């Protein structure tokens, strides 16, 4: 049942404790949201889950397998994909190429030197599927650098989807996206529910309470509460530490 299991995870930057004994259990198929104020350590947590950063202590299990010491590429190949809060794309590549490359990582060897990759239909077809899921299919031939901010956010999602993950770590996919575009994005995430196990970092409370099966609240690197959206909303600890802040602001 437990897809991603994190226990006793800690990380320090000098004197600063950014991840403080985090224990987290993400069950198969659920959408688990992690909320918390700015600087709470959400991105640092994602970085440790994805393998970009090594924790100082603690362990991470994916489907019961200890992945704490595996590199980021190894984890991705085991089915743990992430998107970035700050967009990371290949600016000189087209949108389609950005996504096709993520498909290629999972399909066959990349030590092929002669056949033109642009003509590999299976790669392009799978890439088009991911673009459709992210709502970018009509941008396929554009250069990634030419996209708008909102389109960049959707490309982030499409690339992560194209790796065919079991677990999807989404670090503020809606960052900087507003209005109708955000609503569309939330609907797309909702339609992906069940197909993937998702860990969603998000600031937008509306989005979180609309999407999440369970919510964990991270404050100063520590998980202070985990529960259903209703439980979190009414939790007095959370209200004073986090939601109260929002209401006061």
């Amino acid at each position, binding site marked *: 049942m437990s897809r991603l299991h994190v226990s006793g995870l800690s990380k320090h930057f000098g004197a600063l404790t950014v991840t403080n004994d985090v224990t987290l259990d993400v069950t198969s198929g659920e959408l688990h949201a992690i909320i918390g104020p700015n600087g709470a350590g959400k991105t640092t947590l994602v970085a440790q889950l994805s393998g970009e950063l090594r924790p100082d202590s603690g362990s991470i299990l994916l489907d019961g397998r200890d992945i704490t010491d595996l590199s980021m590429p190894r984890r991705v190949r085991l089915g743990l994909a992430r998107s970035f809060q700050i967009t990371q794309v*290949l600016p000189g590549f*087209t949108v389609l190429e950005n996504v096709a*490359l993520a498909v290629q*990582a999972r399909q066959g060897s990349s030590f092929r030197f002669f*056949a033109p990759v642009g003509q590999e239909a299976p790669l392009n077809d799978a890439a088009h599927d991911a673009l459709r899921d992210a709502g970018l299919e009509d941008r396929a031939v554009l250069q990634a650098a030419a996209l708008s901010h909102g389109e960049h956010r959707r490309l982030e999602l499409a690339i992560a989807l194209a790796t065919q993950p079991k677990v999807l770590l989404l670090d503020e996919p809606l960052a900087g996206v507003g209005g109708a575009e955000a609503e569309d994005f939330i609907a797309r995430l909702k339609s992906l529910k069940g197909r993937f196990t998702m860990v969603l970092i998000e600031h937008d409370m509306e989005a979180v309470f609309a999407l999440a099966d369970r919510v964990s609240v991270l404050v100063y690197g520590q998980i202070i509460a985990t529960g259903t959206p209703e439980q979190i909303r009414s939790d007095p600890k959370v209200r004073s530490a986090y939601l109260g802040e929002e209401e006061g602001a």
Partner: protein
Amino acid sequence: MIAQRARLATRVKVALILFALFAVFPPLAFALNDPFLILIGTRILAYAIAAMALDLILGFGAMVSFGHAAYLGFGAYAVAILSSYGISDLVVQMVVAMLGAAIFALVTGAISLRTQGVYFIMITLAFGQMAFFFFTSLSAYGGDDGVGLPQRSTLFGRDILGGDTALYYTTLVLLMVLFALCHMIVRSRFGRVLTGIRENRLRMEAIGFAPFRYQLTAFVISGCLTSVAGVLLANQAQFVSPAFMSWHRSGELIVMVVLGGIGTLSGAIGGAVAALLLEELLGMLTEHWRLWFGVFLVLMVLFSPRGITGAIRQIIGRKT
């Protein structure tokens, strides 16, 4: 992808134009009654191969190797050493040169690729110098002074390359074949991964690629191709010395690639032509040609950071 296709077609078109010009060059030299030009032409074509091989890692892989002249040395010394043992066959010499280059590239590349950026440049320079001093210490092959080659390499047991024109066209054919090879590589699966690492390393890791093995493979391929240029240069000069692998030479190779426009392959070929012609011309006009060459480079970088390719693109773009 539309933009990508167009760029692709341009790369091939530019290369074909250059190859056509190269092909008609020898008859022209004869018409001008100056067959010595053919030897200069052969030198340019051999450097074009080396510059193109360097562009494969510099332009497409963002690996600025400052020790690439070492591979010219491996090629040149493969000719000198093997022919001193009576093995004069060009194909055998090239295979041995590439094997030596591959081993050196594999070992030094594996170490150098632990670093990035300026550190990568410095460590490849250091390895290049190690190779330089190693060949300088080979007293059986003239040490510092180098050694002359009594005759050129043979092909199919015959002295086909003895004539300057035959050597020129052999070099041209190899340039064309290796261009086709590099062109295929950069648009293959492997090439897309290599270029992706240049574009955004973190993104590539986050979709499951471990950059090291791809970069190292490209580094080895580039070293092998550069050694082919070394074999040809030894035949052109009929002389081999450590000067082939001095760090100046490594710098010149980088200049050729940057001058032509990085990451274009055909630009590197044009860059080799431009750099060596400028060197010849300025050398005739003044003994301070290096200074003027430097001035030219600075102007080039200021006005067209993307090299000759970029300048041409600007001019065409302005017209239409």
